[in-house]
């Protein structure tokens, strides 16, 4: 009797091994398509509508905790905060006046030199819905998506500097990859001397590193790295990181430079999304590359 009960299992559809093979192959196929071609983004955003209520619900305990904390803030702390913000505001106001004058001057100089004007950036504020629960990744989800015209590639920053970049847009959410994500690159310049380089995320910590810096390169502890803006993604002149450690070892061709991000990459709740970057002229086609090479060869 009981034996028939166990055998009933096999009467219900294909055996586990067949199902295993079927679904494993299906998964591998999806993996291949997603990793290689990224065809499945629309499916993903459709399914995200199913999952997002659970995700929003999961952020509730944190939000409630924060609201409770806000409620019980002492008056003294509020007064202190208010004072420090006032002071900050006064300091900033002076600089802002100077900035306006400088902007005006810059505009005139650029017209004088017939250089293209720097575009005005527009920002919209967004709130972090949650950070991704995956030890492999440094990504956050913010509460503005396709409904607020957020686009892939837009830059996310806080009041101090660059936080990351939008990498995926859902109907009501957008996913931003933090600059600390492994192998995430930001083209930067050393503010002190204009040295151009690229800063990479290190992945598992909140550090950044400069790769391929020659041992002899002019870089010092405490140097501020700002975006160079030559990639057409990041607007120029926004702080990214500060150099904290340089290891120059003659045995290696490159110096090991460790930096810390200026922005509170994993601290804040409110962020700014930058939009309205001026479009770069299209990259020249392959053809002009040939004469350049010839010239280089001639020089040699």
């Amino acid at each position, binding site marked *: 009797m009981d034996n028939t009960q166990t055998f009933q299992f096999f009467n219900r559809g294909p055996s586990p091994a067949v199902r295993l093979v079927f*679904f494993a192959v299906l998964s591998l196929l999806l*993996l291949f398509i997603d990793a290689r071609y990224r065809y499945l983004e629309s499916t993903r955003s459709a399914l995200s509508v*199913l999952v997002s209520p659970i995700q929003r619900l999961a952020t509730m305990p944190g939000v409630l905790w924060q609201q409770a904390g806000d409620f019980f803030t002492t008056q003294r702390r509020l007064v202190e905060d208010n004072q420090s913000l006032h002071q900050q505001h006064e300091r900033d106001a002076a600089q802002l006046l100077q900035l306006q004058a400088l902007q005006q001057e810059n505009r005139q100089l650029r017209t004088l030199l017939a250089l293209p004007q720097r575009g005005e950036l527009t920002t919209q504020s967004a709130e972090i819905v949650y950070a991704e629960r995956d030890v492999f990744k440094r990504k956050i989800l913010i509460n503005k998506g396709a409904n607020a015209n957020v686009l892939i590639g837009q830059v996310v920053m806080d009041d101090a500097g660059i936080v990351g970049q939008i990498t995926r847009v859902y109907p009501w959410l957008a996913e931003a990859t933090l600059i600390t994500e492994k192998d995430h690159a930001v083209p930067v310049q050393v503010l002190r001397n204009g040295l151009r380089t690229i800063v990479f995320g290190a992945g598992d910590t909140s550090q950044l590193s400069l790769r391929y810096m020659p041992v002899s390169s002019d870089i010092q502890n405490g140097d501020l790295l700002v975006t160079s803006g030559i990639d057409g993604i990041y607007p120029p002149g926004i702080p990214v990181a500060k150099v904290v450690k340089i290891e120059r070892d003659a045995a290696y061709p490159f110096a090991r430079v460790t930096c810390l991000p200026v922005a509170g990459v994993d601290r804040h709740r409110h962020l700014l999304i930058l939009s309205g970057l001026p479009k770069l002229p299209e990259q020249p086609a392959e053809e002009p590359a040939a004469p350049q090479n010839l010239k280089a060869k001639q020089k040699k």
Partner: protein
Amino acid sequence: MPYLAPANPEIQRPVSTTLIVSSVLIALFLNGLPWEGVWLMLRPDFVAVVMLYWCTHKPLRVSIGLSWAVGILADVADASLFGQHALAYTLLAFGGVMLHHRLKMFDLRQQTTQVFGILALTYAVYALVHWQVNGYVVWPYFLGCLTSTLLWAPLSIMFQGARRMRVDRDH
């Protein structure tokens, strides 16, 4: 026949679909809580443990196909590659279905060692896919495998309790 005597001889009522669905939803919710830093590394994969529980206790209702579908949802929730969780959960379900007779004979402590094997395989597959695509592995990720295993016993007791409560209420 020894395998006919379950570790818990109490007759339990059939599991309602509501219990299965709500447990999976709650597991997805728990996975989505704001875990950070060390806690994120120690976070057990609630969804994996819940799916394994149902695959070993109700293999006729929760099996490989459903685990795969839940894996796809987990992929969307975690923004991992499509099929990464799905592949891992497919193997998890297969392991669960294969071992479900054996697990019933064991007490909770013995079950835990068996479950550890299946979960370790699941975690390894997930990490392997990540390694293949991105070229590196974060080793502390495997801490989650240990905490997930430790979750097995309390979860089993909880589900047993939930199913027993239903009997009491009906009498």
